[in-house]
C-alpha cells in the first residue's frame, strides 16, 4: 500500500496575498514532513479560476519546489489538463521532462480533461472535444519522450518533425495516470495501460467494482506508452488523533468544507448540453452516504464510509478494507480551507506515520526512495509515431 498526500491548495475568503502565501508554504512544510515520515507521493492538481476550492493553477512550479526540498518522495501532477487551449502537449512533455530531471526521476504524470465550465469557458474550450484531445495527448506524450523525431497530425494539434527536449530521466518515461471522476473513465485508463488515479472518493462497493473491472481490462490493454502502469490509487481525507471523538470533531468539518466548496463549482453539464459530461459535480459523486439519498438541500454530503478520519486503530481498519478490494495507494487531502491549524495537520501526519503506516510496511521501506509503480516490461510503440492520421 502506497500513501500519498494530495493538494488542491484551497484558500478561504477573504482572499489576500498573505493568505495564499501561507497556503502554499504550509503545503511545502507538509511535503517536507511527508518525505521524512515515509509517505510515497505528493500530488498537486491543476485547476484554474476555482475561487476558494483550488488555487493550484501552476502545479509544475509547486512540484518543482517540492522536489527541491525533498529527497525521496515522488512528485505527481494530479493532473495536467490535456486540452490544447490550456496546455500545448509539447509544453507538457518539456515541463514534465525537466521536472523529472530536477527531481532525480521522481515524477508521476496524471492526465485529465477538466470538468467545470468555469475552467473550460475561461480558456474557450469546446466541452465536446475534451475526451478527444485527452486521448491524443496520452498517445503523443510518450512518443515525445521516446523518439528523437516526433511528428503529429491530429485534431488536438499537428506539428512537423521535431526532437522534443529534454528527455525525462526515467527510461522510457515517467509513469502515466488518468484522474478518474466519471464512472467509466477507469476503463479508458485500463485500455491504454494507464494508472487509475481516483480524485473523487468512491464508496467501498463502487471502488471494488471499478477496481475489479480495471484489472480485468488492463490485462489485455493496448499500451499508449513504453510501460504499463497498473496501479489504482484513491483520494481520501486524513485527520488522525488518538481520541476518535477529537478526530471526528476536527475532521468532519474539514471534509464538509471541502465538499461544500466542490459543490459550488459551476459544472460543465449544468452550463453546456453535451454528451461528453454526464455527471453534475464530482466530489462524492460516487460516495455512499450513510443517510438515505434524497434531493434535500438540508443534507450535506457529510462523512461517507471509508474516510480517513479517526484514531489510528480506526484508520488501520479502514485502510485494510481499501487494500482488500485492490486499491494499491491512497492519497490524502490533509486540510481544506485551512480549517485545521498547521501544527495539528503536522501532528496528524506524525501520528499516522507512527501508528498506522507500520501496519502496512517495515520502517526500512519508509526510508527508501520510492520506486515507480511501473512493474511490467517496456513496450515498443506501434504505428511508427506518425500520430492518428
Amino acid at each position, binding site marked *: 500500500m502506497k500513501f500519498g498526500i494530495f493538494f488542491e491548495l484551497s484558500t478561504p475568503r477573504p482572499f489576500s496575498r498573505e493568505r495564499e502565501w501561507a497556503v502554499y508554504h504550509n503545503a511545502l512544510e507538509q511535503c517536507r514532513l511527508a518525505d521524512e515520515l515515509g509517505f510515497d507521493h505528493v500530488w498537486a492538481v491543476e485547476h484554474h479560476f476555482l475561487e476558494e476550492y483550488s488555487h493550484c493553477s501552476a502545479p509544475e512550479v509547486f512540484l518543482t519546489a517540492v522536489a527541491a526540498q525533498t529527497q525521496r518522495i515522488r512528485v505527481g501532477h494530479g493532473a495536467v489538463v490535456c486540452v490544447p487551449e490550456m496546455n500545448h502537449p509539447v509544453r507538457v512533455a518539456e515541463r514534465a521532462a525537466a521536472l523529472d530531471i530536477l527531481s532525480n526521476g521522481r515524477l508521476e504524470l496524471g492526465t485529465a480533461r477538466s470538468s467545470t465550465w468555469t475552467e473550460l469557458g475561461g480558456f474557450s474550450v469546446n466541452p465536446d472535444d475534451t475526451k478527444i484531445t485527452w486521448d491524443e495527448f496520452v498517445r503523443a506524450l510518450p512518443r515525445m519522450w521516446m523518439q528523437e523525431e516526433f511528428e503529429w497530425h491530429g485534431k488536438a494539434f499537428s506539428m512537423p518533425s521535431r526532437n522534443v527536449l529534454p528527455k525525462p530521466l526515467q527510461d522510457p518515461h515517467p509513469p502515466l495516470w488518468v484522474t478518474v471522476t466519471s464512472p467509466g473513465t477507469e476503463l479508458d485508463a485500463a485500455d491504454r495501460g494507464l494508472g487509475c488515479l481516483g480524485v473523487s472518493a468512491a464508496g467501498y462497493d463502487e471502488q471494488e467494482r471499478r477496481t475489479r473491472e480495471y484489472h480485468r481490462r488492463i490485462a489485455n490493454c493496448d499500451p499508449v506508452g513504453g510501460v504499463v502502469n497498473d496501479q489504482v490509487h484513491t483520494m481520501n481525507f486524513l485527520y488522525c488523533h488518538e481520541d476518535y471523538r477529537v478526530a471526528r470533531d476536527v475532521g468532519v468539518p474539514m471534509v464538509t468544507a471541502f465538499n461544500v466548496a466542490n459543490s459550488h463549482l459551476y459544472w460543465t453539464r449544468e*452550463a*453546456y448540453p453535451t454528451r461528453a459530461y454526464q455527471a453534475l459535480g464530482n466530489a462524492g459523486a460516487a460516495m455512499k452516504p450513510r443517510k438515505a439519498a434524497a434531493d*434535500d*438541500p*438540508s443534507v450535506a454530503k457529510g462523512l461517507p464510509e471509508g474516510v480517513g478520519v479517526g484514531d489510528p486503530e480506526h484508520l488501520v481498519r479502514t485502510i485494510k478494507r481499501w487494500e482488500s478490494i485492490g486499491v494499491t495507494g491512497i492519497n490524502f487531502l490533509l486540510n481544506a480551507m485551512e480549517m485545521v491549524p498547521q501544527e495539528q495537520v503536522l501532528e496528524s501526519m506524525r501520528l499516522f506515520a507512527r501508528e498506522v503506516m507500520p501496519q502496512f510496511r517495515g520502517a526500512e521501506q519508509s526510508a527508501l526512495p520510492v520506486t515507480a509503480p511501473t512493474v511490467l516490461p517496456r513496450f515498443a510503440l506501434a504505428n511508427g509515431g506518425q500520430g492518428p492520421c
Partner: protein
Amino acid sequence: MLTGTADVERLARSAPRLERYLAEPMVLEDVALFQLVLEMRNGAREAVLPPSLHPTVPPTLSLQVWDVADSPWGPFRMAVSRVSCRAGVRARGFTTAAVVSSAPACDGLRGALGYPARTGEIAFVHGYSGVEATVRIGDGCALRCHAIDPEPIGADDAQYTGTLNLAQAPAGLRLLQVEFDVVPDRAERLRARLEAFDAAAWGEPLLDPYFVVAASLARGRVTFAPLRFALRVDELAFTGTESIAGQG
C-alpha cells in the same frame, strides 16, 4: 463561502401567495422548452440572491422560454429568468421573474408553484433553422434572443436544475423547490445571441448577462413533481429546509 445578500423585504414584495402546496404531479404535453445560459459579471454575484443561497463562480443566468400546447390551464407560453445558485450543496436556479402569456396560466403558476409571474406577450418561433423569442411587457421589450445552427443532442444531454420560487406559502415566506422532469422526443443545442434584455423587467436591475454559454431546445412532455421542500429565505439550506411532502 459566498452567500446571497439581497434584501429579503424587497424580494418579498413580488412574491406570489400560495394557498396550498402542489401535491400531485402536473403534466404539460407537447412542450418546447428553450434554455439559454449566460454568464454575468461578479458585481451582482451575491446581491441578486437571498441569504439562504450561494452563488456559482462565475455567476450565471438561465433564461427559459416554454411553449406549452396542453396544460390544466390550456396552451400558454412562459419566460423565466433564473440565477444559478446552490441551496446547500444542490444545484438550483433562483427565479427573479416570470412572464406568462395567458391569465389563467399566470394565476395557476403563481398559485400552484409560486412562480413570480405576470402576464405579457411572448412570441416564440422554433423551426429547423433555429429559435426566435421575444417577450414584451406592456410597451417594453423585456427579452429578445435568436438562436441558430441547431445540432441534435441526446435526450439527457440538457440539464435542468431545480427552480426556487419565493412565495408567501402557508408556513410563511419560503423558497419553494420546484422540480420538473423533461422527457424529450428530440433535443438540440443551438448557437444563441441575446439581442435585448431589460434587467428591471426581470425583477432585478443588477442582472447583467453578457456572455452566452449555450442554448438548448427540447420538445416533449414536462411533468412538475409535487412540491417536497421549502426553504427559509434567510437561513442556509442546511438548517433552513422544511419538508412539505404530503402537505398539499
